[in-house]
Each structure stands twice: as structure tokens, then as C-alpha cells.
């Protein structure tokens, strides 16, 4: 029994153990130097990642509150990988930050929260996991304590998320009233598509939509992304979003299966709105973080488009895309983080003429952006292709056309950045920067991921073999 629990919960446990380890170091009083701690933590996270690859049995524990299978293990490990990359990239910023242990404690707490959320088989566990991840995240986004924007971001974040979770809870309560159960498996049998249930579902969906920044529940995103420290923004935009997408797919495909006709329509609307709005706002941004924020909103729209497919391929494509998205977005954020930490410059205009001094960073940025834009041969192309392909499976080609044309709009602002880096000049371009080892490793991981995850067919194939259909 206990063994079973430990094996099934091993990923959560490892992260928790690391968390407590850090807590003990903190409590013990004499902290080692930041560099040592950072190396230690990153080694621990790597170990965590590697251990995560060991397969475990499928299981449903605690009366179905917690369940796990190979896809979930993989999803958690994708999050592990993302966390590791974020951590590696945060090196420059954290070295100068005094509360770095606390940063990691909170970060790992959120990660645990995501794990529980993904594994949730029950709305209560889902809610707890969500809050476990959200509350520390709000604190993290205010982690540049002296910066006005950072604290403003965290304020906006916590108010918005409190409001959102309140609405989510209201929805859950109504659903509970309508079905009498909180377990996903119980819900399925009780759903009949009545107006009341649909209302409850829309409220619950809004909670998801809030976390994945789907329009019109996205408004917090840009401000929070902009104000938060870059690594936190990176984390928010990929890990947080990815985790919520994982659980969203699961709930939609299992618990809310009877409502499939309804949620497909709703998601089509949300997806179109999300893509369009994200694009339209991204067009006019000059701050790179804000641009990436809106771009990540657009990407959410694309993922929603994939979810609509409601097929095994759709499930696989979402997971696959999140994996690729982690590489691409973190590649871009890594460059922003590095430059921001070393020079404090964050606007597109600042990036003019970057190529002359920093070809390596420029290419990382360019390739990441191409991947985000879905240009072959980067992995992003495959990700987007499969997503939209899955989305088209139900025959809504007008919608797919809109999505495809949105890719064109999004290309515009990615290319704006490329143009600034490669084609423009400015009187005081960013000088040659040194890239420390850890961010370098992170870039290497991202680039490898972008190059390999797409072209190598087995990555998708593996995910497909694990995924479930509707």
C-alpha cells in the first residue's frame, strides 16, 4: 500500500523532498554562496528530471482523487524539464537575488501543485493543486520586491486569480449540486447537457481559461508577464500554462465528455478570439516581455484549436506542442532574461543591432522565434501543423483557415524582432555579453529540443502511443 503510494507519487515526493531540503538549509542558518546553491539545486533538478523518466504503474489512489498513467508521468516530466530550463536561465538573476532559496521553495511548491493538479481525479484535488500552484506563483511574480512593476504584477495576479478561482468554485459548487459528486468519473455519468450544467461548466471552464490566458479571461496575462521577473514570466508562460492545458484536456476528454458538442463550439469561439486578440495586441508592443506575453496568448489559442479535435491525435498534439512550446518559448525568454539581467534592456529597440555583438544569442532568439512562429524545420512547425491538423479533424475548415491566417499575423511581430536584431542598427547597441555556463546549457537544451523534437518523428510517436482519445 505505502509502497504503491510512494511509487505512484514519486515525482511529487522527489520535488517535495527537494523543497524540504532547501527549507532545512534555510532554517539551518549559514547559507552557502549563491553559486554553490544554484549548482546544487540545478543538479538536484536534473536528477529529478532523470528519475522522472523511470516508468511506474498506472494507478488510481485515494479513492480516485489521485491517478497516474504513463502520459501523466510524461507530462509531469515535461514540466520538470521546463522547470530545469527556467532554473538554468534564472542563473544571472538569482545570483544577485538574496532570497534565492525561497524562490526555489516557492517554485517547487508550485511545481508540486501542478503535479497534483495533473494527477487529480477529482475536482477537489484539482482545486487544491491549482491553488497550491497559484498562490506561490503570485508571490513569485512579486519577487523583485523593490520593483514597483513587480509588486503591481503580483497584486493584479492575486486579485485576478482569487476572483477566477472564486468563479471556478462557484461553478464547481453548482456542478456538485447538479451531479452530487466531485470525482471526474462520477461526473461523466451524471452529465446530461442541461442548461444548468452547461452554466456550471462554463464557470469551470473560465477558471481553466483564466490560467491558460484565453480571451476574454486573459487580461491579467500581459501585465503580470511584463511586471514579473523574467524567469517567473517564463515559468508562467510555459509551465503553468502547459500544466493547465494538460489537465484541461484530461477533464474535457473524460469528465466533460458528454458535453463535447458544446465545449467544442465554445472552444472554437475562445480559440478564435484568443488568437486574434493575442495577435492584435502583440502587433503593437515594443517591450519584448509584453510581446512574448501576447504571443503566448496567441499560442494558447492554437492549443485550444488542437483540443477541439477531440481525438487521440489531438491529445497527443497538445502534449507534443507544449513540449515544443517549452523549448521555443524558453529559448526566447532565456535570451531576454540574460540580456535583461546583464543590461536591464528589454525593448525591441534595444535589440537593434544585437547580431553584431552577440551572434549566438541572436541565433538562439531567431530560432526560438521561428519555432514559435511555426516555421520549418524548427519543431514549432510540426507542433502547429499537428495541432491544427487535429483541430481540422472535425471538419471545421473555416476555423482552421482563420487559425492559419493568424499564424501569418503572428509571423509579423516575430519577424519584427528578427528585423531589429539582424537588420537594424542603433548608436549604442548591446555590447558583447558573456553567457555563463548554466544559461548556456539551457540554450543548448532549447536548441536541441527545437531541432530534434520536430524532425525526429519518434517524439510525437511516443506521445501518441501514450495518449488517449475522447
Amino acid at each position, binding site marked *: 500500500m505505502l509502497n504503491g503510494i510512494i511509487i505512484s507519487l514519486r515525482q511529487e515526493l522527489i520535488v517535495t523532498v527537494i523543497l524540504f531540503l532547501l527549507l532545512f538549509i534555510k532554517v539551518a542558518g549559514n547559507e552557502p554562496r549563491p553559486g554553490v546553491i544554484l549548482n546544487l539545486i540545478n543538479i538536484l533538478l536534473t536528477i529529478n528530471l532523470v528519475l522522472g523518466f523511470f516508468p511506474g504503474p498506472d494507478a488510481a489512489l485515494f479513492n480516485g482523487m489521485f491517478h497516474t498513467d504513463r502520459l501523466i508521468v510524461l507530462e509531469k516530466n515535461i514540466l520538470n524539464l521546463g522547470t530545469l530550463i527556467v532554473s538554468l536561465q534564472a542563473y544571472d538573476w538569482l545570483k544577485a537575488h538574496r532570497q534565492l532559496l525561497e524562490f526555489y521553495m516557492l517554485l517547487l511548491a508550485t511545481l508540486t501543485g501542478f503535479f497534483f493538479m495533473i494527477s487529480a481525479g477529482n475536482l477537489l484535488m484539482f482545486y487544491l493543486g491549482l491553488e497550491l500552484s497559484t498562490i506561490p506563483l503570485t508571490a513569485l511574480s512579486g519577487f523583485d520586491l523593490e520593483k514597483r512593476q513587480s509588486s503591481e504584477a503580483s497584486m493584479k495576479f492575486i486579485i485576478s486569480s482569487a476572483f477566477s478561482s472564486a468563479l471556478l468554485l462557484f461553478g464547481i459548487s453548482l456542478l456538485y449540486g447538479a451531479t452530487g459528486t466531485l470525482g471526474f468519473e462520477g461526473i461523466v455519468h451524471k452529465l446530461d447537457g442541461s442548461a444548468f450544467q452547461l452554466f456550471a461548466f462554463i464557470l469551470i471552464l473560465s477558471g481553466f481559461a483564466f490560467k491558460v490566458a484565453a480571451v476574454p479571461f486573459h487580461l491579467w496575462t500581459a501585465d503580470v508577464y511584463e511586471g514579473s521577473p523574467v524567469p517567473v514570466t517564463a515559468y508562467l508562460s510555459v509551465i503553468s500554462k502547459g500544466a493547465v492545458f494538460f489537465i484541461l484536456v484530461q477533464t474535457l476528454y473524460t469528465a466533460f465528455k458528454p458535453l463535447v458538442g458544446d465545449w467544442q463550439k465554445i472552444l472554437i469561439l475562445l480559440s478564435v478570439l484568443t488568437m486574434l486578440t493575442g495577435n492584435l495586441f502583440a502587433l503593437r508592443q515594443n517591450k519584448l516581455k509584453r510581446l512574448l506575453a501576447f504571443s503566448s496568448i496567441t499560442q494558447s489559442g492554437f492549443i485550444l484549436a488542437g483540443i477541439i479535435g477531440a481525438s487521440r491525435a489531438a491529445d497527443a498534439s497538445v502534449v507534443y506542442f507544449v513540449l515544443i512550446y517549452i523549448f521555443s518559448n524558453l529559448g526566447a525568454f532565456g535570451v531576454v532574461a540574460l540580456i535583461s539581467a546583464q543590461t536591464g534592456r528589454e525593448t525591441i529597440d534595444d535589440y537593434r543591432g544585437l547580431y553584431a555583438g552577440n551572434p549566438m544569442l541572436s541565433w538562439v532568439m531567431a530560432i526560438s522565434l521561428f519555432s514559435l512562429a511555426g*516555421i520549418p524545420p524548427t519543431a514549432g512547425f510540426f507542433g502547429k501543423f499537428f495541432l491544427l491538423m487535429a483541430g481540422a479533424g472535425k471538419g471545421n*475548415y473555416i476555423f482552421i483557415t482563420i487559425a492559419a491566417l493568424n499564424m501569418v499575423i503572428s509571423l509579423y511581430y516575430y519577424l519584427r524582432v528578427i528585423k531589429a536584431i539582424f537588420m537594424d542598427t542603433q548608436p549604442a547597441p548591446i555590447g558583447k555579453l558573456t553567457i555563463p555556463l548554466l544559461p548556456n546549457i539551457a540554450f543548448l537544451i532549447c536548441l536541441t529540443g527545437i531541432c530534434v523534437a520536430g524532425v525526429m*518523428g519518434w517524439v510525437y510517436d511516443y506521445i501518441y502511443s501514450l495518449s488517449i482519445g475522447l
Partner: protein
Amino acid sequence: MNLSLLIILPLLIVLVLLFCRRQSQVRWVSFIGVTVQLILSLVLLTLYWREHSVHGATRFLFESRQSWFPALNIQYHVGVDGISVAMILLTALVMVGAVLVSWSIGTQVKEFFVLLLLLSAGAYGFFISLDLFTLFFFLEVSVIPKFLLIGIWGSGPKEYAAMKLALMLMAGSALTFVGVLGVYYQAHSFDLARMFSEGAMPLSVQRFFFPFLFVGFGIFSALFPFHTWVPDGHSSAPTAASMFLAGISMKLGGYGCLRVAIALMPDAAREYSPVIVTLATIGIVYGAFATMMQKDLKYINAYSSVSHCGFILLGAGMLTPTALTGAYLQMISHGLMTALFFAAIGMIYDRTHTRLVERLGGLQKIMPFIATIFVIAGLCSLGLPGLSGFVAEMTVFMGSWQRSASGYRLATILSCASIVVTAVYILRATGQTLMGPVKDPQYNSLTDAKWNERLTGILLVTGILVIGTAPFWLTELINK
């Protein structure tokens, strides 16, 4: 022969280039690389002839198939027929020219050649693909190198042009993408070869998806009214990129229209034929008239490309076997001709630093070689017999005339009439640039073509002449 070599070789050269230190090394490696590629394409041609005479019945040769995304039934599937072989040969030839004229690129040489080679890899991949996914993959691969080539090494409003080109081409591929998906969900496979053999899909499906595919590819091939990236893009691009853009990249679109859109959806193509023909004719005539008013040599050639690529689409729209053959011929002919034209313009621009027709004059005296290739390109453009343009255009006209409804006849006549307008603008350009008195005394000190430029000119002119004087082998290759 393993066709993947065609893609791998440019990538290998790119890899080698990354380790090159000096600029001259970069140039020579690229040159040797593309020459090897050209030889490879010639070998492919001979092997193709030989193989074809052995097993004549099969449509595609040297097929190789490899599972790529088995879950989605996506394969890496390559193979060639005569058309692809011809296009590959064209690409190889233009690439040699493009590398040679880029000899004097001074800044960021390595990046330039790397991008150029990536571009070519994309084109090769496109032409050998027998799987729609692979095809689409390679179609999109080529967009970004173009953007960078124009934006970094271009001239004039280069960023604007680069952006416009990238966005419009992306829009084209977005439409193509929808079409590809539609085909996929109909056939549950991306395998072109299989789809050809399985026969046409239901008419309603064709009707819905044909416009996506055709317009999508059409944008690449300057389909009116989506041609506006052409003038800006071609004019701002550096010489080699212009050559490749106009010579090869635009052909990707035509090839796609013919090979994918029309071949997969022949019934819809027949239904949409009037629309296609109308747009193509507008493109041809209106492109020609617009060219007449241009003052910049590159704009002249760019607009004339719009007009000439209209013939490809016209042939595609007419749908008679002869017209389709003509469309293919026009792709090849225009590829060579426009590459030569852009090369000549580039050589002139490198020397005089202007492309404005009114500032040039009397260059024939100063640079007879460049003048000669310029004139040959021009004559080819206006369809002089003995040069490739004539062969292609006449085949298109002959094929078009076979559609005997009066609307099609009118379109054919109007398209024929455009060759008069072509003559007008070509002669104006030639007359003002090469003939007449020397406008600027500084020009007297300029030199004629250097060896690399000569080689470019000779190669491309040879291509044009070979097709122009002995077209039968090419038509045979295409019709096989």
C-alpha cells in the same frame, strides 16, 4: 540514385561552411558545393533517362519511402518524374549562377551563403517530395531564408520588402495548409503518389479545397491580385536572392498548382478554370502594362516576372495537355531567363550603383559582355525563337487555343498580345540602358564582367539556348 542526396548535400556544405574561417574559403566551398550539386543533377538526368527506358511504365523513379510520423501516416517519401528532374536541374543551374554572382558580397559572407544554400535545399526537397506533408514542409522552409537574405543584404526599402514577401508567402502557405489538411482528411494520407493512383476525390471536396490549394500556391507564383510581393521583394533582394526568388521560388508555386492542386482535383480545376484563366490573363496583360511604366531595372524584371508567371497559371488554367506542358516549360524557361536577367542587372548595378533606366545609357560600349547577356535575357523574355521563352510561350498558346470556348479564346488572344507589350518594355529598357550615348562619363572607366560573372552568364545562356534550339528533349522529359 538516392534522392535525399540532393537535400543532404547543401546541408553538408552548410556544415562545412560553418567551419570556414576566411571569406574566400567560404566562397570556394560554396562554389564547389553547388557545382557538385549541378553535376549530381546531371547525373540524375542521365540516370533518369536510362532508368526510364528500362521501366517506362512507372510514373516515379528512385522512390524512397520512410516512415516519419507513423501515427499520422506521414512519410518521408521522395521520388522524381521528368518534371521534377527538369526542375532540379534548373535549380542546380541557377544556384551555380547565384553563388557566382555573389562573389563580391562583402559583409557576413558566411551567413549569406549558408542561407542561400538552405534556400536551395528547400527547393530541392520541394521538387522531390511525393508526400504532401514533406512538400509543404519544404515549401515553408524557404520563406525565412528569403526574408533574411532580402532584409540583411538587400537594397532600397529592404525591410519593408522582406516583411511583405514573408507575410504574403506565409499567407499563401497558410491557405495551402488548409488545402493540404482537407486532402489529408479525405485520403487519410499525405501520399501524393497513392492519391494519383487512387483517382479523384468527391466533387464537393474538390470544390471546397481546390481554391485553397490553388490560391495558396498561386501566391507563390504571383497570382493576380496577390502578386504585389513580387516587385518589392525582387527589387530589394540582393542579386543572388533575386535570381533564386524569381528563378526558383516562384516556380515552387507553379509546380504546386500543377502538381498538387490540379493533379489532385482535376474536376474542380475544370470548374474553376474560367476564374483561373481570368486571373492569369489579367496578371499577364496587366503585369506587362505595369512593367512598361517602370523605371527601375529590377522592377521591370520583377513586373515582367508577374506577367511571365501568368503564362504558367494560364497554362495551368487551360488544362489541355499541351497547355500544361507549356506551363512546365514556362517554369523552366522563365527560371533561366529571369535568373540571367537579374544577374545582368546585378552586374550593372554593382558597377554603376544605379538601376534607374534614365541614369544609364550606352553601356554596350563599356561592358559588351554584360550587355550581350542582358540582350539575350531580354530577347528570351520577349519570346524570340531559338531561346527558351519562345518554346514555352508558344506551347502555352497552342495548348490554350485548344480550349475553343470564346472566353478562353479571348484570354489566349490577350495573352498573345502581351508579347507585344513585352517587346515594348524590353526594348525600352535595352535601348535606354545599353544603347544611346553614355550618360555619365564616369561609366567610361567601368570594367566588363569578371570571370565569375562571365561563367554565370555563359551557364545560363547555354541553358536558354539548349532549350530554345532543341526543346524536344525537354518536352519529352516533361511528358513522360
